[in-house]
Each structure stands twice: as C-alpha cells, then as structure tokens.
C-alpha cells in the first residue's frame, strides 16, 4: 500500500523535475538583451505577401545601418484574433517590441503600455513631425504626446457596381447622392436582379461600430465627446437605425441578417468599405468609387485607422523606437503609401498616391482620400473596446427582427454599455 509519506515524496520528485524543466526552458528561451544582439519583433495583422515584402525590405535596410540589430521579424497574426493574441503575449511576458494597433490603442495608451514617440520623432533629423495631419494623429495622442504612428488612414467610401445598376435601369449622381437614393437604387437592383443592394462591409449584423459610416451622416454618435455618456438613444440615432431597419426588412435594399453577399465578387450594387479594399477589385465588373453619400445632416467622412507603436513591455524600447522612426521617415512613408493612405501632408495628393496604386486613378484618390481626410472622424473608439462591442451587440441583436421596437432596443444598448463607459 502506498503511504502518504511516499506519495508526498513522489509529488516532490515530480515537482522538482517540473521546476527543473521550467528553469531550463526559461534559460534557453531568452535572446539575451545584449545591445550587440538585438532582435526586434513587430506584430502585424496583414498576411499580404507584397506588404510583408516591403516591411522586410525596410527592415533589412535598417539593419544594414545598425549592425547591433541582428534581426527584425514581422509576425503576422490573424486579424480576427489579433487583439486577443497581442494581449496574451503581453500578459505572458512575451510582448513584441512594436505592434500594429486599431481599437486596442485606447486601452494601451490609458494603461501607459506604449512608449511616447513625440520626442524621438521630433529629434530625428529629417523626420518632419509637422508634416503629420492633425485628424490622423488625434486618435493616438494623449496630452500632446503621440503614442502610435498612424501609418494607415483609409477613409470609408461608397463602391458602386455600375454594371448591376445599369441592369436594373438605375442611375445615380455621385455629386448629389444621398443615403435615401442609395437605398432606393439598392432596393431596385435587388428586386430586378436578385442580387443584393447595399452591403456595409464587415458589419454582418455583428460589428455594429461599422454602422458609424452611416449614422454619422444622420448627425448621430455612439457616445459623447468625452466618452462618458451613451448617446444611442438620441433622435438622430433613431432616425439612422430606422433607415437601416427599413433597408433590411421593408425595402430589401440591404441583405437581411444571415444572408451573405460579397460586393467584390459582384453580388451587390453598393458597398461601404475602406479605400484600401480597392485591391479586392478583380475587374470582373465596372465600378465607381465615391465619398460617402450625404445624410440628413449633410456631407461627412469616416476614417478607419491603424497605428504602430512601441510597447513599454518590450525588451528593446530604445532600438524599437529608433526603428519606428526609420520605418516612418518621409522616404519610407512614401513607400508604405502604396498600400496604406499616409498621415503626411506632403504625400497626400492624388497624383502621388496614384503613382503606386494599380486600381484607383489620381482623381479618385484625390476625391476619396485627400479630400476626405482632414475632416474625417474615426470609427467609435473607447477603452475596453471588446467589452463594449460585445455588450452592444448582445443588446442590438433584438434590432434585427422585422418587428423590432427601435427606440427600446437603442435604449437597451445604452443600458448595456453605459457602465463600461463610466469606468
């Protein structure tokens, strides 16, 4: 029979073996923080081969000038799990040195988890800090300090499948286009061709923050300027959601919940998507690209942003900040601009942007990027973005039924998210 003493002995033996294994693992896992052997790692959510190739090329050029940096790795993480993976890496003591960031930026900045960049960028010869557009840096700044370089500033635009419109006998005038006209034309296309009318890309009746591309035109916002008060119950938001609800359930202008339609595969007449999505156009149909239609409150522009920052939990803050300054200097910013609309005034002309763009003309880029950027607002962003998104979605699910009580559902969204806004 096994006695308690022997069992304790066996457990002690296994625990000792486990500890030995753990110590061994930690000893071999370190890359050593020697200044002469710096290995930088940057997490990105792109897996586009051309974009990664450009990053690698810039990294290689930097290493040629900085022999102390032995490698720069661009670690591609799936977009859907990007925030979760990044926070798990940070929590697990394996933070990257640099990271792309979207809606996680507010939490990172509020937690002092990012290294302030303003001093370094201003002090770098030839970097030209004043060249940055204010509307682009606003989202990534706190108390006058920039915490992430806004390398991608892609305004949302209206893509139009002109072939489908012609089939349905519909004409639009982009200069005076309104949301009501888009809904009417979309409903007509759906009725005549069976294809979808308007698709708000990536919304899919889940990612409700994408609807800001519509409700901003109705004068609505998700919360107050200071981010503390929910404004989902406002009359403007009710008008916006009445428009969306009618489009989904009355006129058929939008495909209903659970129905898939991909504009870029030719399945829809209109889509709202970022300018950078133009790379998905295959030439299988004729298209138009215009600024967002006017809403009841007039013309407006909405921006989708990504920034890159240096993590305070990274092993090589100084070298990472130096590499970030190099990655985003005017020459490299011009190279990155072929994929990502830049935040630099000097690069923001239709002609310059079109130099490396195979899908869009200089006139299109001038109108939908350069013309929109200065006054654009960003998608709703707040600390605890995932919790707000989830609680809001849970409440908004009641909206996507034909007989929804729109004011009641919008008020329930506020009831769900207000405690998080107030934190």
């Amino acid at each position: 029979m096994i006695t308690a003493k022997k069992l304790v002995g066996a457990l002690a033996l296994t625990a000792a073996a486990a500890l030995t294994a753990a110590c061994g693992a930690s000893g071999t896992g370190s890359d050593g923080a020697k200044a002469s052997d710096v290995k930088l790692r940057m997490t990105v959510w792109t897996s586009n081969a051309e974009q990664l190739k450009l990053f690698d090329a810039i990294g290689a050029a930097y290493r040629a000038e900085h022999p102390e940096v032995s490698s720069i790795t661009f670690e591609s993480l799936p977009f859907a799990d990007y925030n979760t993976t990044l926070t798990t890496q940070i929590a697990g003591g394996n933070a990257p040195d640099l990271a792309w960031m979207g809606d996680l930026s507010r939490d990172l900045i509020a937690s002092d988890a990012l290294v302030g960049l303003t001093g370094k960028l201003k002090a770098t010869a030839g970097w030209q800090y004043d060249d940055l557009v204010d509307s682009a840096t606003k989202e990534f700044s706190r108390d006058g300090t920039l915490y992430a370089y806004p390398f991608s500033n892609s305004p949302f635009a209206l893509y139009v499948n002109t072939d489908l419109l012609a089939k349905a006998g519909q004409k639009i005038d982009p200069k005076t286009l309104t949301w009501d006209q888009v809904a009417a034309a979309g409903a007509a296309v759906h009725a005549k061709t069976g294809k979808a009318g308007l698709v708000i890309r990536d919304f899919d009746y889940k990612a409700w923050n994408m609807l800001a591309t519509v409700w901003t035109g109705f004068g609505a916002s998700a919360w107050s300027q200071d981010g503390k008060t929910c404004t989902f119950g406002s009359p403007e938001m009710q008008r916006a959601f009445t428009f969306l609800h009618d489009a989904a359930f009355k006129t058929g202008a939008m495909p209903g919940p659970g129905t898939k339609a991909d504009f870029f595969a030719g399945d829809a007449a209109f889509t709202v998507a970022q300018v950078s999505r133009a790379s998905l156009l295959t030439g299988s149909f004729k298209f138009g690209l215009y600024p967002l239609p006017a809403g009841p409150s007039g013309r407006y522009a909405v921006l989708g942003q990504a920034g890159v920052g240096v993590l305070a939990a990274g092993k090589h803050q100084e070298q990472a900040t130096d590499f970030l300054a190099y990655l985003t200097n005017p020459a490299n910013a011009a190279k990155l601009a072929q994929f990502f609309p830049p935040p630099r005034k000097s690069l923001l002309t239709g002609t310059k942007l079109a130099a490396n763009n195979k899908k869009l003309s200089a006139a299109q880029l001038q109108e939908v990027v350069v013309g929109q950027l200065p006054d654009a607002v960003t998608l709703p962003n707040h600390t605890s973005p995932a919790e707000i998104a989830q609680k809001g979605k849970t409440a908004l699910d009641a909206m996507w039924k034909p007989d929804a009580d729109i004011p009641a559902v919008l008020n329930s969204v506020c009831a769900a998210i207000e405690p998080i806004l107030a934190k």
Partner: protein
Amino acid sequence: MRYWTTRRRDVLTGYLFIAPQLIGVVLFVLIPVGLAIWYSLNKWNVFTGKQVFVGADHYAALAADPQLPSVLLATVVFSGGVVVLNITLGLLIAVLLNRRFRGATFFRTLFFSPVVVSVVAWTLVWGFLLQDNGGINGLLRAIGLAAPNWLQHGDTAMLSVVVSQVVRSVGVNMVLFLAALQGVPSELYEAARIDGARSRSMFTRITLPLISPTVLLTAIITVVGALQSFAQIAVLTGGGPGLSTTVLVYYVFQQAFEFNDIGYGSTLALMLLSFVMVLTLLQWQLRRKWVFHEQ
C-alpha cells in the same frame, strides 16, 4: 542492512513508471488550477502586468453578474441537449449497425468520419449551410417548407449548435457502444429467445445491463465534453443572438481573453471546474444503483 532492497527497487520502478503522467498532471492540471485560484483573487492589468490582490471581489462579482443566469441556462440547454442526443443516438446507431447486413462497415465509417474532421472546418461548413440563403434553406424552400433564419433566432440558433455538435461527435459513442455490444455473450440472447423473450425485453434486461459500464463511461465523457464545447459556439454563433448560445466556457473565454479580465475569467473557470467535478462524482456515485457488474 542494504538500503536498496528488492521491495524498495520495485517501489521506485513503480514511481518511475507513473512519473511521466504525474509530471503531466502537475504541470498541466495542478499548477494551472493553482494559478487560476491565485488569479481569481487578483485584479490583473494585462497591458502592464500589474496585479493587485482583491480577495473575494471576483466571487462577489460572480454572484451579482446579471448575465450569468442566461449563461448558465444556455449551458444547461446546450449540454443537456448534446448529452441526451449523443448517448441515445449513439446507442441507437450502434444497435442498428451491430447487426450483420450488407454495407454495415460503410455506415459505421460514415457515422464515425465527422469525428476526424477539424471542429472549426466542420463548424464553418455548417455555418454556410445554415445561413439564410444557405444550403439547408435552399432544400427546405425547394420542397415548399418554411425556411427559418437558423442562426438569427435564439431557439433555432441553440438547436443548430446542438445538432452540428451531435452529428460531429456521435460517432465516438457509437464506436464505444458497438464495442460493448459485441462483448455481450450471444448465449444469453439464445437462452432468452428459447424462454420466449421479446426483443424489447432482451434489450432492457440483457443488453442494457451488460453494457451499462460503457453507458457510464460515455455519459461521463459526453457530459465533460459538452461542458467544454467552445469552437462550435465561437465559430457558428459567437454566443448570440443575445446571450442565447453563450455557454459558460465561451463566457470564460470572453471575460479572460476578449475583455482582458483574467481575474474574473479565472473565477468563472473555477466555477466550471467545480461543475464538471460535481457532475462526474455524482455519476460515479450513482453507478452503484444502475451499473451492472457480473462479479
């Protein structure tokens, strides 16, 4: 007197044999559970790595969580549906395929094959089939039946995740039941037949008692498996609509890894662990009442 007696050598050999498993249990069960208990007592800012001891705050939050009743209800409905369907269908299919007929091997393979498919791939395909303009509704409309928007309504969404899970995993129980059925001595059936017993009596009085140890085993692994089902929910419904398919394990993931509240997520995980342990112990204790042992 010599220290390394034969007995001591035998004991050491025994410990060395179980050492790999013990190390695994310590590393991947005891230490994580201990850490989960520690995390549940702390507030952890994952962005900075700072931990603050908050005592029983997370347990108080658990008691006051307004979403928890809905989450527990969804967990009970999902797990109950999966367990009942998985065991009854598994047994039914096994009984049918235990007979000798042409094509029996083909059908055994057919029912078992979903088990080897990646759960995410399986669920993605079901997602396409179940969408409003998907394959299942196409078939229903073609034969003039109503086509619900399966994943957009609470009841049908829950039914969808349960069915997709059962169809994928019923093959495991089927194989276990098949093995048990083939171990039932045929003489018992012959003797019963001579005594004039009917099929139903033979099933309830011979088959079920003799395979009851396997029923216990499948019940335990199916209950544990159902309580741990995550990918089906994450991929197919994301816990919605509303909270209708947010089961406890998915809620743990949301709190810990999406909302970055590791402390509260750990508290919920410990609650899930306690449910699994209680249910398993309960089944183990109840076995005396219904599991048949020849000796």
